[in-house]
């Protein structure tokens, strides 16, 4: 049962990712990304990470991708123009992708202390997750939130710099 669901949603995820690249219209690409995010959430759920699955849906599929589509709609971005593509991009791009994939795969396969998860694992409750997050990993968690805060402040500062008069309001 788990395996059938895994194959279904992993397939959906890959199909969405391919569609994202192949679609000519930005809104279709954005919606394919929503499909990818949602099927990832199901994969998390299959691994027993229920809170992560819900957070994936609420944060990524619900909030971030709505912002994406919002911006696409606001700018009224049209279809992409078809170009012949550049030879150098193809010549450099594919080897670069292969090299990066190889490096990441080696690192992951060589790592010794990585835990493993299987599809039939029990569900990790939100309580356990928050205990790990707020007891053992408290410092990294707080540092990450400060990092995000800095990014937000930077974005606000950049957005305000353009017109000096309005910023004073």
């Amino acid at each position, binding site marked *: 049962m788990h395996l059938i669901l895994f194959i279904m949603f992993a397939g959906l995820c890959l199909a969405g990712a391919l569609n994202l690249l192949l679609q000519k219209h930005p809104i279709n690409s954005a919606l394919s990304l929503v499909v990818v995010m949602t099927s990832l959430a199901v994969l998390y759920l299959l691994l027993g990470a229920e809170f992560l699955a819900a957070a994936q849906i609420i944060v990524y599929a619900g909030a971030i991708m709505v912002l994406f589509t919002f911006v696409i709609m606001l700018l*009224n971005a049209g279809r992409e123009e078809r170009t012949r593509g550049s030879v150098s991009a193809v010549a450099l791009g594919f080897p670069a992708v292969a090299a990066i994939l190889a490096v990441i795969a080696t690192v992951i396969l060589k790592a010794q202390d990585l835990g493993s998860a299987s599809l039939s694992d029990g569900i990790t409750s939100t309580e356990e997750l928050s205990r790990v997050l707020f007891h053992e990993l408290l410092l990294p968690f707080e540092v990450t939130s400060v990092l995000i805060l800095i990014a937000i402040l930077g974005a606000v500062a950049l957005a305000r710099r353009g017109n000096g008069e309005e910023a004073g309001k």
Partner: protein
Amino acid sequence: MTILQFVLFSLLKVLVVTVVLLTAVAYTVLLERKVVGRIQNRWGPSRVGPFGLLQPLVDGVKLFLKEDLVPASVYRPLFLLAPVLALGCALVSIAVVPFGNPAVAPEGFHLFQISDVNIGLLVVLGVTSIGVYGIALAGWSSNNKYSLLGSLRSSAQLISYELALGLSLVGVVLRAGSLNLRVIVESQAGHGILSWNIFGGFQIVAFFIYLTAAYAETNRAPFDLPEAESELTAGYHTEYSSMKFATFFMAEYANMITVSCVASLLFLGGWTSPFGSLLPPPHNIILSALLPIFWFVVKVFFFLFLYIWVRGTLPRFRYDQLMNFGWRYLMPIAILNIVGTSLWLALKH
């Protein structure tokens, strides 16, 4: 239970709940027309059937028989997908709502709930946040400036108010120690009305934040800017006709019902009785199964009535007021509520 039995039992529950929900949607529309009519000193629909009770049926037939126009310049795939998405999401979130006391049902049967999920509350929030796409895509694919403006407003409004909505629920979750809606209800079952989160849990501030944010989430007055008829014709569903329009209409009312269900589960103790143990529990098994459902329906009805009352009373917000209110007032108060509740819980232990 074998898998086949489980699937059949679930299908049966889904069927019953969907039929009840859609009937409730139809009659909420009638209730709204009647109540708003009385608020405006007129009768509302009164011709079809006794007291106009058959009006929803006739409305349905009318919408079904209308010509189904698809304008030439729309982006067809998304134009057709949007209403399906809107109604689909509106119907899905009812799946985690517990309607009655699970203790009455035989062991292993979730008789009063389609599925008893650990993260029920998050499922409701997640499905609602996906539902935005229905409205956003409807406006964009219609290729009409009013529709586009309507859906832009709607997306911005939903993103802004979802934050306050989510934060207002944290206090309740902290008190119950679970995201499971059934457990949240059971945590309020002790002493009737006194142990409901709104009174005994001191979540009354969170309750008002939730209610305000939920009105904005469901695009209802006074936050119905996405379909402000005086500025935007009909907003995101301007180009929709016949059953496609009706789909959006049903989605809006189904969302109202879901929001009312969640509000009564989280703040008014769901299916628990307001009298607690003052009234002796009924010995009759049928009565003890039906009484919790009765209390639940009464609470949901109260919220639906409140929706209509507010619509008949308050004028629409201006857009900048809406944004200011969400970000500058609701969100800080919601955060303060979380801090207050956690402090209180920490000191109590």
